[in-house]
């Protein structure tokens, strides 16, 4: 099997398992709905104040659901005792990484689309012209979160206190992604064109590239033994 085929096989397997069990997706959808309630209750009903913090709250929603989703990346294998099976896959292990990453990206983008839709409805955001730019920022930010998240999920899969350690490791590393996405979203929602936040988009592209390359190069090391 070629490299791409092997990566696709892993992604396909994960998505098929998810489609049949809907374990993660159902809980994530419900969780993001609850987050919306929590934001509304903790921030109060003041429209103006909500509008001011909306970009931050939106990304808080994305990040919290991403932490839950990404942390589970390798739990399917753990829970069903397929870890060895995964390790026995022939060839370069980074194909497994790409497959897992693709599965994670698909899952996260579905949840994020849903959260964005809920935000539009509940907080009455006018996406309008901001949507194309916002999609670029969300896609780049999600790739950044998922690329390191998938690598760290593999590292914490066999570790004590994994639920705690995973966010503790991931969040500090993701500060650049968070700052860039929140600031860019803020500007876009204020009606500025994507060109006005070009420096943030460049930072996101640079971060994504660095994270992807490091993850691909080091994933072999994480999975051995």
């Amino acid at each position, binding site marked *: 099997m070629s490299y791409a085929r092997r990566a696709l096989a892993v992604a396909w397997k994960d998505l098929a398992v998810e489609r049949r069990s809907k374990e993660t997706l159902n809980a994530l959808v419900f969780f993001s709905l609850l987050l919306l309630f929590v934001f509304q209750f903790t921030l109060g009903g003041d429209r103006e104040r909500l509008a001011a913090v909306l970009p931050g709250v939106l990304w808080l929603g994305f990040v919290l659901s991403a932490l839950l989703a990404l942390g589970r990346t390798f739990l399917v294998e753990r829970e069903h005792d397929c870890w060895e099976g995964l390790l026995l896959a022939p060839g370069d292990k980074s194909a497994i990484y790409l497959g897992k990453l693709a599965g994670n990206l698909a899952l996260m983008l579905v949840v994020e689309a849903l959260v964005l839709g809920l935000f539009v409805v509940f907080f009455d955001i006018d996406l309008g012209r901001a949507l194309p730019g916002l999609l670029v920022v969300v896609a780049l930010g999600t790739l950044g979160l998922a690329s390191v998240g998938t*690598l760290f999920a593999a590292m914490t899969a066999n570790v004590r206190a994994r639920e705690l350690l995973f966010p503790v490791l991931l*969040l500090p590393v993701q500060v*650049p992604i968070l*700052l860039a996405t929140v600031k860019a979203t803020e500007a876009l929602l204020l009606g500025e064109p994507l060109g006005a936040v070009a420096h943030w988009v460049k930072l996101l592209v*640079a*971060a994504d590239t660095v994270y992807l390359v490091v993850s691909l190069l080091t994933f072999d090391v*994480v999975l*051995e033994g």
Partner: protein
Amino acid sequence: MVRVLGWLVMAFAVAPREVTQGNVQRIMYVHVPLILASYLAFGVLAVASLVYLVRRDPGADRLAHASGEVGVMFVGLGIATGSIWGKPTWGTWWTWDARLTSVAILFVMYLGYLLLRGTIEDPERAARYCAVLGIVAALDVPLVHFSVYWWRTLHQPPSLMKPGGFAGSSSILWPLLVNLVAFALLYAYLVARRVRLLRAEAEATA
């Protein structure tokens, strides 16, 4: 080792004597070398992590481990001393200034590194995972730097947070340089001791 300690004693004994300013300013002689020595520690950690992944030499891992511990301690002390200096000088313990934020992120990032080490029992696996994390963290530093810089400076002029103008007179510069060397040596000394201890631990359990 005795000679290193001698250097330290000299640096601490000689440096303050040359100072004629207010007492609070003296913190700078500890604060700046602490932060710079912690950068040195994290740099060594990154290189040692890379060397470990390539050569699988447990010695490189022990060097990374020790550097991580000393670096986190230094940066923590650096933040604490900066905070103590900031209260009378800036009137606040903490502000989200670009540099402060970067250093704080650095601190939590490498604290996470030590946490990861602490939770893995198998030393070989701990070495591998920590080496990967060490490399990711090192490559993240420039990204953190730029994002935080833009985040703050596009927001408000940096001139607000400028520390109370230090003139670059040589009476300040020399004690600072002596202390820089002293803290680099202190780092080397602590790491050497820690590496020796880690090696002894590894031999004892082997």
